[in-house]
């Protein structure tokens, strides 16, 4: 019968637990004793982690079929074992991996739930938007204005700058090509058509989705997580007309305005290139622009921006409302909201583009 002794230091706590555990494991593996005596003679203090460690050593010893005995325990140490040692060994169940069909099933179910939630939200929002025109009580005073200032007015500088640069670049890139044919004046046509029908609405929508759509999602998601939405429900207030509708109305009002501004400034950006690099006169450039733009182009621009506004508003609200989890969920919803909004804006742009082409 081979007997080994593990002598413990004066204090057994977290600072030296790793060392003691290594020492014990080495003893068990290399010496292969029949019995292990854990000697507490010097131990004056042991904390909960020390107790846990001894229990783990005992469990490891069982695997090697080694008997363990604890000797020379002071009363204080014994008390620590009574308080911290009664826990059965950790039986940690790992979560089962789901099989292929479960994954497919869950994804389909989730998609169905999302689509139905989204449909209900759309009908709710449109219903309450309509109702809020008739029922004064449903309106929060000044809320649409406040939201419009945030979504529209505060976005003016950045949208003006970006659209100016877009118009500028469009003109710059096309001028090198068109100059070869002596078709300098057609730069004006190109910039005007491209800005008004395509770049203006699209760039503005993407900017607003990134700037205001994300803010709306984050705000609603935070309110959901912190139970503010539940509080509104409990007070008998439907959050749809109270919170969501003003934001949607604000975005629908401001986006076409921002788009129109972006169109004008984009064309001015093009004109700068026309004047500087193509020897065109300001008047000539703008006469050409006015000549080439018909009502149809302006209508396309407005229809597109209106559609994008509704998309941005509804998607932002949808992702905010359906947040899962805590603060991390808010981040995830905001990211999903921006990605989905930009994706659907581009899809809608393509569909409308095709529609107006014929």
């Amino acid at each position, binding site marked *: 019968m081979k007997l080994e002794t593990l002598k413990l230091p004066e204090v057994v*706590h*977290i600072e030296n*637990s*790793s060392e003691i*555990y290594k020492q014990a494991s080495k003893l068990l593996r290399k010496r292969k004793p029949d019995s292990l005596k854990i000697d507490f003679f010097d131990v004056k*203090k042991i*904390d*909960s*982690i020390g*107790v*846990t*460690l001894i*229990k*783990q050593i005992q469990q*490891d010893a069982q695997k090697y079929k080694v008997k363990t005995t604890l000797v020379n325990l002071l009363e204080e140490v014994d*008390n*620590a074992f009574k*308080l*911290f040692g009664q*826990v059965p*060994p*950790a039986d*940690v*169940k790992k*979560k089962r991996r789901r099989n292929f069909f479960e994954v497919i099933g869950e994804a389909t179910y989730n998609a169905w739930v999302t689509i139905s939630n989204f449909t209900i939200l759309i009908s709710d929002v449109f219903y309450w938007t309509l109702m809020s025109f008739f029922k004064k009580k449903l309106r929060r005073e000044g809320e649409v204005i406040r939201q419009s200032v945030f979504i529209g007015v505060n976005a003016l500088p950045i949208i003006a700058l970006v659209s100016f640069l877009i118009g500028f670049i469009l003109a710059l890139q096309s001028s090198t090509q068109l100059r070869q044919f002596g078709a300098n004046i057609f730069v004006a046509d190109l910039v005007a058509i491209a800005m008004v029908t395509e770049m203006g609405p699209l760039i503005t929508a993407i900017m607003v989705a990134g700037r205001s759509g994300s803010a709306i999602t984050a705000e609603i998601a935070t309110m959901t997580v912190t139970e503010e939405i539940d509080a509104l429900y409990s007070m008998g207030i439907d959050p749809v007309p109270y919170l969501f509708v003003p934001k949607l109305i604000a975005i629908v009002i401001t986006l076409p305005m921002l788009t129109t501004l972006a169109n004008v400034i984009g064309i001015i950006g093009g004109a700068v290139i026309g004047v500087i690099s193509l020897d065109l006169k300001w008047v000539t450039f703008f006469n050409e622009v006015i000549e080439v733009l018909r009502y149809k182009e302006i209508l396309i621009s407005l229809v597109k921006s209106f559609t994008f506004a509704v998309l941005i508003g509804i998607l932002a609200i949808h992702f905010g409302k359906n947040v899962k*989890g*805590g*603060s*991390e*969920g808010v981040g995830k919803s905001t990211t999903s909201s921006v990605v989905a909004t930009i994706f659907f804006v581009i899809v809608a742009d393509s569909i409308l583009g095709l529609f107006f082409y014929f």
Partner: protein
Amino acid sequence: MTEPIIQVENLTAGYNERKILQNISLDIYPNEIVVILGTSGCGKTTLLKHLIGLLTSKEGKVKLFGKDINNLYDKELIQIKKRIGVLFQNGALLNSITIAENIAIPLKRHYNLSQAVMDRIVHLKLSLVGLDHVYNFFPNELSGGMRKRAALARAISLDPQLFFVDEPGAGLDPVTAEALDKLLLSLKNQLGMTLVVVTHEVASIKRIADKICYLSKGNILFYDTLDKALKSDIPEINNFFNSAGR
């Protein structure tokens, strides 16, 4: 005489121009439970935040284990933080990871323990607070009271010598609150912990407190043993203990 574990010297603090704490001095000795009391807005939480080092003030000193925590290098500060535990009012568990992972954070970050030992420690801490069945749950899958207890398990995961508790009984039923108090007492006795507790619950105060520190308008109105507090003839303190009984 043993050295105090917490020393506050002439601490004056506030937000912007508003002074919340005025010239506070306080010594807390090892293996005591000191309850900080006071009406709402008297500066309890501000004082607690200064003790933990979350807030710092230019006027006055806060020393933990004899070291001024506002004048330490990061390494020394971490050594001190390893010896203190904090239970926040709302638990402050990280929502994106499971309860077990939450409790293992300080263990993993500061020590090189084997996974088996770590699992065991997490399991022990959870069973101490009566929650060993929620190992793999996420914080948002638990009730408020359970979250609080899980947060307690995380706060004591390193067996801290100094334990700060903000409103331990808030959101708990009386039975659980009493069990929690018993646990705090046994931790104090077994591990020689020093506890600084902010609470309003008179029943809980009577169960656990060794000393009472009563704050009023940014000053310490009273700092002595529980017995003396209960017999005190200072009207404000008298009111505090008696209004709860009515």
